[in-house]
């Protein structure tokens, strides 16, 4: 299988993009990273699924990124502009990401033992995304960042779940959840600027 060959590079791609998501302060960079992350998700899901179904993941991920990006362009930039993180914060986040990576290596074997259908690469990538997504959620209260964190966690789960469940309905529903999260994120970003309803 061609995708088996690329699964380990995909794990690295996911680790790097998820780590950059933690430290990036520019929303454009963040959306770029999450879009690249979904390419990694696609490669790892394609290990278990036919390519024509696996591609749903990358399309829904990219569409989610596009929705969030469009919303960000409509938000007053003064309100959402983030300043670059200070060096100590960056170092802390990189260390935390590294620890999540190490955790993935140790926990990956347990996942494979519990779910024999899951390959080692899928287990690593899934845990990395879930751990870094949760870390992201723990470090922010901003809607844009919360949605990125949730998309990352959900992406990690989708890699693991793809190995054990191949239902087309669940594929469609999870894609709906991905797009729905992005739509909710876009709404939460723009809602404060909309006219109040009573």
């Amino acid at each position, binding site marked *: 299988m061609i995708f088996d060959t690329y699964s380990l590079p995909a794990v690295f791609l996911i680790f790097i993009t998820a780590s950059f998501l933690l430290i990036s302060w520019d929303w454009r960079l963040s959306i770029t990273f999450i879009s690249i992350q979904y390419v990694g998700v696609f490669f790892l899901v394609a290990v278990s699924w036919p390519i024509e179904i696996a591609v749903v993941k990358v399309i829904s991920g990219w569409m989610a990124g596009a929705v969030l990006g469009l919303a960000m362009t409509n938000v007053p930039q003064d309100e959402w502009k983030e300043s670059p993180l200070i060096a100590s914060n960056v170092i802390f986040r990189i260390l935390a990401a590294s620890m999540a990576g190490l955790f993935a290596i140790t926990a990956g074997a347990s996942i494979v033992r519990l779910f024999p259908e899951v390959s080692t690469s899928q287990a690593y990538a899934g845990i990395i995304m879930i751990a870094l997504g949760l870390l992201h959620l723990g470090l922010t209260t901003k809607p844009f960042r919360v949605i990125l964190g949730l998309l990352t966690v959900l992406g990690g789960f989708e890699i693991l779940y793809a190995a054990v469940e191949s239902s087309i309905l669940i594929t469609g529903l999870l894609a709906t*959840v991905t797009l*729905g*999260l992005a739509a*909710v994120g876009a709404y*939460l970003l723009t809602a404060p600027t909309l*006219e109040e*309803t009573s």
Partner: protein
Amino acid sequence: MNAAYLWILFPLIIALILLFLQRYKVLVAVVGTIISALLAGLAAWLPVQEQLFIWRWAIPFSDTFILLGRRLTLSASDRPSLVIIYFIAALWFGAAPIAKSGRLFVPFGLGMIALLTAAIAVEPFLFAAVFIEIAVLVSIPILSPPGRPTGRGVLRYLSFQTIGMPFILISGFMLAGFEVGPGDQDIVVIATAIMAIGFGLLLAVFPFHTWIPMLAQESRPYPTAFVFLLLPGAVTLLGLGFLDRFVWLQNAPNTSDLLQGVGVLMIVTAGIWASVERNLARMMGFALMLDIGFSFMIIGLATLGEGGSFRELFFASLVTRGLSLGVWALALSGLRSHVNGFDLKDLKGVGRKYPIILTSVIVAIFCLAGIPLLASFPMRLVVIEGLSLVAPQNAVLAILGSFGLLIAAFRTLSTMVTDTENDPWLANESRILAIFLMIGLFGLLLLGLFPNLLIQLLTDLPAVLGQFTP
């Protein structure tokens, strides 16, 4: 014709149309109410057969809809659930204009109802978790309306519900796998732990409960109470689905202890926090937690033996929860434009100006605390009696937790009737609000005085009680 078209697709389309008509608030509420009542009526009276005869025409009618290779089935056994869901929706949408619940409430609320109906219909039942998650996403505009900053409670609610869904899906897969090839007991332990975390996140079990009071404080009371009523109810039904599907899990000796333990934890923590809470909206959140705790207790007792009767109690408690929360939230909505906030310090003496609102809030709290003569009391009594036979310490803790909510009620009462400006007692509520509140109060009293009305109704709807047999 298909059942899924009628109770899932049709309300979704109507919700979409109402979204475009949101400017006409009263019209939207009226249409939402009529459609919901119509669907509840159809669920009650539409004959369950393969053909529907309308005048001269025979229209084929199926209860199953195939969606991407999986079945959405709304069989005869689901009809009573549909009656209850759409009837409750009709009641809530009917009072929406009075509660000033926002333009988006009815369209998105109807969308939520349709999605939760899909969650009931989908097979395998496990996929219901994803439909519930989509319903959560649909609920966000209700909770965080346009023109208001996004609160932390909404984000936490979204996060916990979204993270909870994968836990449910994974645990369901593991438990199904164990059923096929039993042997490794470790898998059962891990799967149960994953399932417990998943339901803990979705049902706001301590320590994942923080979003409930935060959301109650930040958002408008009426739509928030609507979400508080629907989602935990749907998630608990999903939990019952787990117990129905995995009978060995239902019969496992530790299942009842686990459910009762979680129930006690929720009741005690909610009771303690409610007793010291200074915000009336947050108090509503803690009261909900207490009621969910009692639901856990009921299900825990049901797994011990008399599954049927305790399941009746569970559904009856959902109805009384809906009524109590509705009265409480409607009363708070009526008060919202007259006070600075729902902190007790802002409510000093308010009861003298709005005595019907005061009565409604206090009676609703009393009801959720299980005071005699009110709707929840008969259910609470049976639960406490059941607990006293199997785990007396849990019964004592449950009573203590309820006392916490009672303390909250007395503190609220004391604050709201405190005379600060020598105000005379005068009913300033609008007439329509007063009528709705009086109807709600009458319902709470009626169900408390004649609990058999509700129990008998539920007994006559055997399908609501599912296949959960002792």
